[in-house]
């Protein structure tokens, strides 16, 4: 627990937003997210989350949206573009001067739907309409696939304007899976909400549960016992391991290494089975709760040996991939995300770190037992698919290192402390999920119930940046490039 505040809250007037943003950017800071909530009926407030330079606490800018209008900040901070459009769609706000003011999540006719009473079954017309760029050259063709895609895939539609092999323009159409899950938290008991948070993104169950719990713990200003914080790290790193191994299986598949694909998937399965035996659930759901853990986890005496054997298998697999020239040939120079685009469009996690941006919540804003652990942050500069794969391979090794350091330090004792969020309070929690920075903001009403929960998933950030690596590329590289980003959709769509 650090002495300095984790988060600073600052009131900002609408006409002072642009200047504050300029100051932030000039000093090397970056916006993280923005969301709307209603402190009083019919009065919307927008909260902007900003990360100033390294070593400084996060900032929350609180800004009243008078008459439901605010100036758009998307021209200076393009990554805010999607957040503003989402607030436009779901909370009925207008961001003046927005460069792309079209609906993103739901149709314009449904503006403000997150604030409306629910009547009857959802209407298929809720889906946001497709807005495509105008194409004048008759030779340019449009290829659309999805939302139902080949194999077992999450639903999304992808549109390519192409000429022969060359992709001129690419547009992903997301939010087919928008469930309105943030509204599901509202009115609920903050202590019970973790079960819901764990079901926002299945392969990020631990990260979502953890960020949620930490947000509620922030609102309660409570202390989590050390053993619980340590076990949270164990679960979170196991989650990173099975996700990253899944990633290599998928990347081997995209580069047509069938044995490599099978081996990656088998290693992923081994970690999931281990997670199931340890926690009672393969995604390690149903263990976390605000204040600590719902129950203790008995760490078997042979866990270090089991992990050491797995580590040897994983190491041998990663080395074999590194030695496979056909695999390297397909990755090197594919799908370059420049440092500047990664920064401006808000790329996060291994994707931004492969473009030279040195950020990791575990090290920069430590939580759980990461406060007591040295988190190495692997980086690369090239920003291509190979850099993204290298960063993830190095992160697999860091995860094993962290668990090896953690296990001998495990304390005995309680795993749950009292956690009672204060009425009319708010809290912010975060986690470095396998795919990058994940934030939960919770607002507690006067009766101690959840009034609003905002989820910022890493894939919401990375889907925004991904198309910039597809424009002006070629069709053959697309599947490999997509696999190299390791994107998920459920958390993005929510």
């Amino acid at each position, binding site marked *: 627990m650090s002495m300095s505040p984790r988060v600073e809250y600052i009131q900002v007037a609408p006409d002072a937003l642009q200047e504050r943003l300029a100051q932030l950017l000039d000093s090397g800071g970056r916006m993280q997210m923005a969301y709307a909530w209603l402190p009083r009926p019919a009065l919307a407030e927008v909260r902007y989350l900003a990360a100033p330079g390294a070593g400084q606490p996060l900032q929350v800018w609180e800004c009243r949206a008078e008459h439901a209008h605010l100036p758009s900040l998307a021209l200076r901070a393009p990554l805010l573009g999607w957040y503003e459009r989402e607030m436009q769609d779901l909370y009925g706000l207008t961001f003046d001067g927005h460069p792309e003011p079209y609906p993103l999540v739901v149709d314009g006719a449904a503006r403000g739907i*997150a604030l409306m009473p629910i009547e009857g079954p959802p209407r298929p017309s809720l889906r946001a309409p497709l807005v495509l760029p105008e194409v004048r050259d008759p030779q340019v063709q449009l290829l659309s696939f999805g939302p*139902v895609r080949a194999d077992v895939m999450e639903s999304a539609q992808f549109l390519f304007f192409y000429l022969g092999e060359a992709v001129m323009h690419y547009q992903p159409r997301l939010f087919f899976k928008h*469930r309105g899950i943030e509204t599901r938290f509202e009115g609920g008991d903050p202590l019970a909400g973790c079960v819901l948070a764990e079901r926002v993104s299945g392969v990020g169950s631990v990260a979502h549960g953890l960020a949620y719990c930490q947000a509620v713990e922030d609102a309660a200003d409570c202390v989590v016992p050390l053993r619980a914080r340590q076990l949270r790290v164990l679960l979170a790193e196991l989650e990173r391991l099975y996700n990253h191994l899944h990633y290599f299986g998928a990347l081997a598949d995209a580069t047509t290494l069938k044995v490599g694909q099978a081996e990656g998937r*088998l290693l992923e*399965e081994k970690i999931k089975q281990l997670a199931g*035996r340890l926690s009672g659930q393969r995604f390690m759901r149903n263990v976390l709760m605000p204040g600590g853990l719902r129950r203790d986890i008995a760490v078997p005496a042979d866990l270090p040996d089991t992990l050491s054997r797995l580590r040897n298998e994983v190491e041998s697999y990663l080395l074999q991939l590194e030695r496979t020239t056909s695999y390297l040939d397909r990755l090197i120079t594919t799908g370059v995300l420049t440092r500047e685009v990664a920064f401006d469009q808000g790329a996060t996690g291994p994707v931004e770190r492969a473009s030279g941006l040195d950020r990791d919540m575990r090290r920069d804003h430590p939580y759980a037992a990461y406060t007591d652990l040295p988190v190495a942050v692997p980086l690369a500069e090239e920003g291509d698919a190979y850099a993204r794969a290298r960063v993830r391979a190095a992160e697999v090794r860091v995860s094993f290192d962290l668990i090896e350091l953690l296990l001998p330090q495990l304390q005995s004792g309680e795993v749950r402390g009292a956690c009672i969020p204060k009425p009319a309070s708010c809290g912010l929690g975060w986690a470095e999920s396998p795919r990058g920075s994940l934030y939960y903001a919770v607002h507690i009403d006067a009766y101690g119930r959840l009034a609003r929960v905002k989820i910022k998933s890493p894939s919401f950030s990375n889907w925004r940046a991904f198309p910039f690596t597809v424009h002006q590329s070629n069709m053959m590289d697309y599947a490999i490039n997509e696999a190299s980003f390791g994107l998920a959709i459920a958390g993005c769509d929510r």
Partner: protein
Amino acid sequence: MSLWTLRGLRSGQATTDWPQKADGDHGQHGTLGMPRITAEHCGDECRRCAQTCPTQAIALDTRGHLAELDYGRCIACQLCVEACPSGTLQSSEAWAFGVRERADLEWSLEPRPLASQQLAAHIEKSFRGSLHIRHVDAGSCNGCESELQALNNPFYNLHRLGVFFTASPRAADLLLVTGSVTAAMQEPLLATWQAMPEPRRVLACGTCAVSGGVCGGTYASGNGLHGILPVDIWLPGCPPNPAAIIEALLLLLERKPQRVHGGRPHER
């Protein structure tokens, strides 16, 4: 490439001999499934299980005792088990909850008379040895997808059972649906079903597809497949683990018996 082939051959067989061998390794040891209802020990006015259930799967009688539990709504979150002071609800490893009739997921204190079991073949014989599945994600959390993808890893190796995922609905025998059916996925889901040749079957995979799960009934989320498609197999679970999905597929193919009737699992 040849190195990979040698490497694969050297590493030997990773595939389990379950389910052909009933005592083989199904890979789910230590995982918690649906709560087990042991007996009636409820205390008067307890109500804790129903109050804690995030998906309203539990109904009480006038004394506040457990009266009904709908496993089709259960997400196996274990909250009711932890809240229960009397031992009525206990954790269990029961996960093979695929059923043909939705009502077979509903446990009630007074067992309801079961619908007469149809003896006529449910499934065309031609499906039994070779089933092709078209999966549609109708708004899942990606947990079900993760477990469906696991089916093709070397441990489960679904192909060995003659079951395959196929890209085109035109070549599919079974529509396997995950998710609560969001507003935007309703049309693509129905279009996929309509593109399938008859006879076609539908499997509702996961509690979201069975009943809406944790997010059913928001402005954007439906309540699963009930009333949207004719479902042949209902498989709750959050998510159902790979072995549970295999059991449900083999149940569809009449290669495995149904293990749950009236919300009551039988022993193997």
